[in-house]
């Protein structure tokens, strides 16, 4: 007990120390933000009221955005389902195949959707096809990892029984084991669909289709009322998709029942939507592509710029990666701190209904805005540099962490709380000793998960001038400087691998 408490205190102290180090390294300056708060308020005020007349112009790119995410998520999730059993360590599939697939998944998981999309534009041309390809790969990587993790902890009795009857392993998996991971698999896929809409909304930045191009244009021209209408349209689209996904999740997890006919209609609708999205996504354009480009890209990975890789100076890879991690770390901690009250506010269990509804709407609105847009807005107030990156990451983190945390609050076990009440324990002590112990692990795992995501997001912030490794990476790719791009890619892979390992160790505790 004593020892555990001491270790917990040490962990908290270490996290605090790391946070202050990261904040200092990224030049966090609350005074600067406060002194220029007027700029932020100006931008927000200019967004309202949005330019209503301009709304119809948004619909086509918005549909393209949704289309990219639906087609990409469905395809990626299906590929992941095919690959996941081969990646799982507890199933009797060939070990070399497993190792190769796992390496592929780990490799693709490293890169944010935006970098994948940029790469895709070099291979399949500018347009929504590149965006769809990027979302597919991105979804594949995440889903393959999540599903194979699930498979490893799923009961395998039925699967083994089918094997002993002579069923081929792949078929035995889908008959004997998939049913027990199916609901988590579908829940994860639906959740990714939500996040992918936000990701798709910025892919236009690198020419990969969707609403991002328009958004970028209007922000750079400072037509904020048009930015406002785009963001409002995005918010509505995200609301729609979230409520749809919440409804489907409830069906999948059995919290809501549906008749046979309704089920069939839903499945048919999903299939039709996916097929229509995939069929109308636009053709790839190979005009700019050549085998030489692909060969040069691979060449960059095989022969990276080792001079840059091992450069320890301020312009070297090490420094840039460290800056990226520092941005992600400081941003995650700030975001987590802000999420706490928001999650409490949005909890239907602790707050009266209207307050909870308001809290949830705020969370949803924060989540609906793509993160690069925050970067572009903050940069007007705090200027280019890592501090802007920290603010961006912090605001983006609030959306997800407060959602996860709110879910934890809503699924708390109240029995111990009531038992303490019946002993006459005052309410504050009851919350502290019966409820907080339940929330700690959920909060910790939400923060760790978000940190993992933030490393990736921080590595593209450079695109809008908000520090980190993103600017050099995109610059190198745009100039076909593949050795530098290769060095950065290898650095990112190593970094994400190290962070994965570290957070795995933390999770074990």
């Amino acid at each position, binding site marked *: *007990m004593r020892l*555990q408490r001491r270790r917990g205190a040490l962990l908290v102290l270490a996290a605090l120390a790391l946070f202050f180090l990261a904040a200092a390294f990224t030049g966090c300056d609350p005074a600067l933000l406060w002194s220029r708060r007027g700029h932020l308020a100006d931008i927000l005020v200019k967004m309202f009221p949005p330019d209503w007349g301009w709304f119809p112009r948004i619909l086509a790119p918005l549909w393209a955005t949704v289309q990219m995410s639906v087609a990409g998520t469905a395809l990626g999730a299906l590929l992941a389902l095919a690959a996941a059993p081969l990646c799982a360590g507890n199933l009797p599939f060939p070990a070399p195949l497993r190792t190769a697939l796992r390496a592929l998944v780990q490799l693709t998981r490293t890169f944010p959707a935006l970098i994948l999309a940029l790469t895709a534009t070099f291979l399949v041309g500018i347009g929504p096809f590149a965006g769809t390809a990027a979302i597919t790969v991105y979804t594949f990587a995440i889903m393959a990892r999540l599903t194979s993790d699930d498979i490893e902890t799923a009961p395998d009795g039925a699967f083994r029984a089918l094997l002993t009857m002579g069923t081929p392993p792949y078929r035995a998996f889908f008959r004997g084991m998939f049913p027990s991971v199916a609901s988590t698999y579908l829940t994860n896929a639906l959740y990714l669909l939500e996040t992918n809409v936000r990701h798709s909304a910025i892919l236009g930045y690198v020419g990969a289709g969707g609403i991002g191009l328009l958004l970028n244009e209007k922000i750079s021209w400072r037509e904020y009322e048009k930015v406002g209408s785009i963001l409002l349209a995005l918010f509505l689209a995200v609301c729609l998709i979230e409520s749809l996904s919440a409804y489907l999740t409830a069906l999948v997890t059995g919290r809501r029942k549906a008749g046979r006919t309704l089920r069939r209609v839903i499945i048919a609708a999903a299939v039709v939507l996916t097929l229509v999205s995939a069929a109308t996504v636009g053709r790839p354009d190979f005009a700019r592509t050549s085998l030489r480009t692909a060969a040069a890209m691979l060449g960059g990975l095989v022969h990276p710029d080792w001079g840059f890789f091992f450069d320890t100076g301020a312009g070297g890879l090490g420094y840039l990666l460290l800056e990226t991690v520092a941005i992600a770390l400081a941003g995650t901690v700030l975001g987590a701190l802000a999420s706490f009250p928001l999650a409490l506010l949005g909890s239907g269990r602790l707050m009266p209904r209207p307050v909870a509804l308001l809290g949830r709407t705020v969370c949803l609105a924060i989540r609906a805005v793509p993160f690069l847009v925050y970067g572009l807005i903050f940069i007007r107030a705090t200027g280019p540099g890592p501090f802007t990156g920290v603010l961006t990451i912090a605001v983006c983190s609030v959306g997800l962490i407060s959602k996860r945390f709110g879910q934890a609050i809503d699924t708390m*076990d109240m*029995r*111990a709380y*009531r*038992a*303490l*009440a*019946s*002993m*006459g*324990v*005052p309410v*504050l*002590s*009851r919350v*502290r*000793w*019966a409820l907080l*112990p*339940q929330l*700690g*692990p959920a909060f910790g795992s939400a923060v760790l998960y978000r940190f993992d995501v933030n490393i990736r997001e921080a590595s593209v912030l450079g695109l809008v001038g908000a520090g980190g490794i993103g600017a050099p990476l995109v610059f190198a790719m745009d100039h076909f400087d593949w050795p530098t791009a290769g060095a950065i890619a290898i650095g990112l892979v190593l970094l994400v691998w190290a962070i994965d390992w570290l957070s795995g160790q933390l999770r074990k505790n």
Partner: protein
Amino acid sequence: MFLRLQDVCKSYNGGSVRALDGVSFAVAEGQFVSVIGPSGAGKTTLVRLLCGAERCDAGQIELDGVRLDQARGGALRALQRRLGSIWQDFALVEQASALQNVLNAALPDMSPLPALAGAFGRQRRDEAAALLDRVGLADKLDAPVHQLSGGQKQRVAIARALMRRPALLLADEPVASLDPVTGRQIMELLQDIRRTEGLTVLMNSHDLALAKEFSDRLIGLNTGRVVYDGPADVPDQALAAVYGGGEAAP
């Protein structure tokens, strides 16, 4: 502790469901009383009223001459502090250690700041550890509760109840979610504690055999009314009214 109920009524859903319908009985200090009856007889409602989790619609509930049904706020908490309770589903904080769960029972006696900071003090920690030793869990002090078996969890819950040094121990189906062997061990522990500490015990049970074996007195409820009140060592036929339709209990 002396317990007295007089014409206690409680209904739910705006009066459409009468859970308790004029229940009266008294329990003398040191008695082991089992409340028996079929599902829906009102056993759980009775315990919920006795521990102050709910309020009765009519009638009187007295603990040592103090009206529980009229107590509010601080007065109610003062009465609740003299009760210990254990539940069918244990009602423990699963993520916290066994020791912490027992220490939680000391919270009502502490001032707010130390209670929030977890400054329980050496004396309370030693007392909690001794209680866990008493229920046979000396080696599980630091184990998170979710790692314990059902029987071990109920032992932690008993230690938590004892931490309050209760005058009355309320037990709501304490062995219903345990296997027969473990359930018997828990009952033996309860009886042993009752003997050594001189506790009054009021237990709900649908297990007639265990209730008959371990208690001094049975109170039989059926559709919210007392239909049997008497000694525990009677043949099953004497309890026919409790289980309705003249059919003997299982």
